[in-house]
């Protein structure tokens, strides 16, 4: 009916062009068109936060945004967090504090934590818990995740 649109967006600092249908979410395009499969699909309805990405500085669920809306935007995904082989301090802290088990929710938690630290470099525990409330984890339990973020803050 409507065919595909050509969208230009900056993904992890690099300008990309991609074709997508209007009905494809940013999540679908990240995974299935750009093959950036670090962003996970959990509930696909804005409840679990597994697909958290940062668009123009704003943390959001990629399942709740159309990819065509990303025209001209800057999108940050988990793939942009490390610098080459050098892990981001949050990633190191998650490893050291065992802030993950199965790993499906991890990219979303890391992006939420990054968005928090971008805005508030030294958050307290309450702020960390508030900013992670939009992310669900079914195996780790949240204490280790909170501890991981707080450890990255101290680092």
């Amino acid at each position: 009916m409507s065919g595909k649109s050509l969208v230009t967006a900056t993904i992890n600092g690099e300008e990309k062009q991609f074709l997508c249908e209007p009905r494809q979410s940013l999540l679908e395009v990240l995974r299935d068109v750009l093959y950036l499969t670090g962003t996970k699909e959990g509930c696909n309805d804005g409840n679990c936060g597994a697909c958290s990405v940062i668009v123009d500085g704003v943390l959001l669920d990629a399942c709740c945004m159309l990819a065509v809306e990303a025209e001209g935007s800057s999108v940050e995904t988990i793939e942009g967090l490390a610098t080459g082989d050098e892990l981001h301090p949050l990633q190191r802290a998650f490893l050291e504090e065992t802030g993950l088990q199965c790993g499906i929710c991890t990219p979303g938690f890391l992006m939420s934590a990054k968005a928090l630290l971008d805005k508030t470099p030294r958050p307290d525990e309450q702020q960390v818990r508030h900013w992670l409330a939009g992310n669900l984890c079914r195996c780790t339990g949240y204490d280790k995740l909170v501890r991981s973020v707080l450890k990255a803050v101290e680092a």
Partner: protein
Amino acid sequence: MKDFQYLAPRRLDEAAALMAEHAGSAQLLAGGTDLLIFMRNGRKSPEVVIDAKKIPELTRLQLDAGRLTIGAAVSCRTVWEHPEIIEKFPALADAATLIGGIQIQGRATFGGNLCNAAPSADTVPPVIVYGATAHIASARGERQAPVEEICTGPGLTSLAPDEILVSLSIPAPQANSGAAFLRFIPRNEMDIAVANAAARVDLDETGETISAARIAIGAVAPVPLYVEAAGAALAGKPVNDGSIASAARIARDASTPINDMRGTVEHRKQLVEVLTARALRRACDRARGEKIQ
């Protein structure tokens, strides 16, 4: 999700022309946190989706001589990050920080929450108590309506299929006025209201007498409910437990909740009375200059 045409007009008149051309088969897209979910599960299947976020009038957040204008496509996060809104219109920030998690707040909008017309919509009672006016545009012209007249039933509004909610405008708060919004959910974050309540009070210069008040309650009626009688009962009354309790009782009696997975009729009636009283107390404290986040 069914296929559709995506359009992103940059001018309000263009958007109005598109809404007229596709009236009934078009949906305006603001934050998408409700619409995209409904499109995915088949509850809505528009042929045309018109993105509201490229239209200046819908994305503007403006304080002009104390009057606040919130474009219909302004996100909750933009509202709660605004220091002057937190100070001057704290009940808006109360609601904006309660909806979903940070991810949802970054996308979800005041205009979308109103037009989605959920009985539990958390941003609607606060804009009602602030006396907001809805500015509506279509190819046929512009009109204004009190915000409490927009929702007409669960998922239903008084907007015609070709009409666009442009913005909500809220008069500058008077001296010695305060407002608050409270919600009950069985956990700390990320849930839909079992009941909610917003209150605004204007106190006289002594801070001891209420000159005017407005109360609105949610998730206890088919629409977010403006309880005019509860506010009117407070006019001229002293700020004390007795006046607050009688207004809260009126709010309880005005509620017509249902039994569902979130709560029973009795539970919701009790909650809305308690929440109204607490919101009134908090509004009075804020009117007296206390900073309560």
